[in-house]
């Protein structure tokens, strides 16, 4: 584990990809972030009771999961994995091909979902699935050759296994609109959601936290036994929940949620022990978002457990999905992205013999502050709108989300401009 963090910063400069590779995914993610809140606004009348089915809310969910979360994960993994593992990625051409498949694939998919265009849906799903599988192959090839870094690699492998399953199930769900195989969409979609949110993105969030949190806080590596305990409990929780989803078994779903809560507890204890020994006391705005996300993860799991136990929560299933996707994962990714974009930008902007530009020189603080406030208000308003079954509150929250996302886009453009503009990234 120590090598995960150990090699990270030292090797970062010499293993930088061309900036255009990670930044194309970050740019797409920032654009999807704006669009997802717009789509949520457009579908606000349906959002409080949304549990699946084609339409604007489903497009908003996939703009978030594929457009924002997976897009950021791909950009970050392509840049950070070779640095952390000291192993180059197999091919820059394959990374570019991933973007050519995945970015237009996601765009087609969400347009098809919003407009209920079945033929477009299959084409988008095919392109996005191929992009994800290529990404999975590249990352698997990189992780296969790593010696050491057991905890991070184990999380990476678990995330990849979940990714292959979630992509396959997603493709089958999309294809079923064509072929009418008679799949139970509600059960399959719940399994798809659990594998995507907690399996693929969740495992990546846990694994990256063991590298990035000590790096930003200047703290020792988190406890490996606690980390492996969290991984085991999370894996068990995901398997139980997916089985529960397919079997429509509340008992399995409840067991899965409780195992997930145990995993969360162990993960947070590992990070808490690390952070209490940190040298950097001021962790900044990004950690306020990360800590907010850390509150919303167990909140979503506790709600999931309550729902599986039969608790009468108004629009509970929708709220569960919203807390997990928008509350935990989106907030976490935004907290991390606002740290790594200027960090990578600073490395890319360094010229031989020159002083590296400061991260603060690439960071516009005001837009980030505006984003944090708007994001928090947006989550509160949409969450309240779901519980109170009030589309108007969802609409207000979505507009706040749009405002926050535009502020975040302003910050991201500021990083690019201060790095030297698009020309510098392209070169």
């Amino acid at each position: 584990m120590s090598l995960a963090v150990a090699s990270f910063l030292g090797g970062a400069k010499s293993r930088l990809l061309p900036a255009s590779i990670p930044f194309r995914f970050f740019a797409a993610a920032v654009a999807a972030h704006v669009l997802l809140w717009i789509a949520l606004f457009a579908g606000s009348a349906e959002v409080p009771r949304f549990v699946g089915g084609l339409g604007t809310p489903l497009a908003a969910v996939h703009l978030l999961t594929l457009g924002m979360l997976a897009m950021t994960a791909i950009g970050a993994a392509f840049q950070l994995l070779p640095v952390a593992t000291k192993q180059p990625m197999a091919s820059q051409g394959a990374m570019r091909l991933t973007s050519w498949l995945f970015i237009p694939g996601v765009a087609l998919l969400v347009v098809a979902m919003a407009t209920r265009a079945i033929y477009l849906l299959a084409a988008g799903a095919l392109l996005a699935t191929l992009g994800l599988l290529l990404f999975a192959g590249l990352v698997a090839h990189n992780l296969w050759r790593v010696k050491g870094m057991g905890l991070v690699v184990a999380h990476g492998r678990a995330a990849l296994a979940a990714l292959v399953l979630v992509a396959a199930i997603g493709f089958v769900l999309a294809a079923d609109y064509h072929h009418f195989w008679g799949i139970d969409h509600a059960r399959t979609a719940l399994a798809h959601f659990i594998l995507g949110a907690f399996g693929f993105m969740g495992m990546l969030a846990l694994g990256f936290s063991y590298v990035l949190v000590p790096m930003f806080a200047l703290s020792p590596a988190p406890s490996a036994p606690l980390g492996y305990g969290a991984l085991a409990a999370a894996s068990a929780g995901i398997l139980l929940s997916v089985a529960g989803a397919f079997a429509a078994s509340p008992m399995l779903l409840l067991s899965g949620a409780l195992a997930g809560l145990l995993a969360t507890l162990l993960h947070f204890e590992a990070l808490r022990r690390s952070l209490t020994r940190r040298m950097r006391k001021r962790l900044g705005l990004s950690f306020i978002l990360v800590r907010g996300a850390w509150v919303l993860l167990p909140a979503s799991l506790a709600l999931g457990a309550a729902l599986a136990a039969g608790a009468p929560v108004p629009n509970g299933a929708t709220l569960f999905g919203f807390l997990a996707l928008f509350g935990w994962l989106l907030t976490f990714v935004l907290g991390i992205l606002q740290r790594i974009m200027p960090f990578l930008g600073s490395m890319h902007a360094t010229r031989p013999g020159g002083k590296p530009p400061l991260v603060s020189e690439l960071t516009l603080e005001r837009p980030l502050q505006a984003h944090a406030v708007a994001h928090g208000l947006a989550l509160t308003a949409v969450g309240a709108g779901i519980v109170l079954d009030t589309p108007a509150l969802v609409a207000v929250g979505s507009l706040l989300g749009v405002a926050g996302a535009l502020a975040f886009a302003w910050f991201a453009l500021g990083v690019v401009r201060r790095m030297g503009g698009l020309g510098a990234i392209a070169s």
Partner: protein
Amino acid sequence: MQFGRRIPNLLHDEHVATMSALEKLEGLLGRYRLKQPPEAADPDVAAVLGQVASALSAEMTTHFNFEEEVLFPVLMSRGEGDIGELLAEEHAAILPLGERVSALATEGRRDGFAPDAWAEFHRLSAELIERLVSHVQKEELSLLALLDDVLEDEDDARLTEEFLMRR
């Protein structure tokens, strides 16, 4: 003890002292803005300036010199020269900044800050904090763990002796 060998622990202890001084300096910059010089007679201000001046002059120079003259060549001989090269580049950017901030802190503590001197101190300190935090980050997370990994017992003993002799 955070590391298995002695030399990374000694370097870590100096990082802790430097980070403590930087956190206090950052607090001072937060309390007194660019155009608002503090009263140097204020005992809290004087204490921070004293700690900063000490941490950023002799202590930092000694630390950097030890790394460049003793430690990095050892790493180079073990095939790990990249990290030393990167850190030495950063030393070259940080050292003049540290010396200037240290000199301004010493003068400010002795004579108080004129508005221009405070503005310069404020601006340079903010840059120094960021560069030095990022540098300590690299050393803590890369260099020290690497030392634990590649050094033999006799290297550790020799480096520790050299480190202590220079203090």
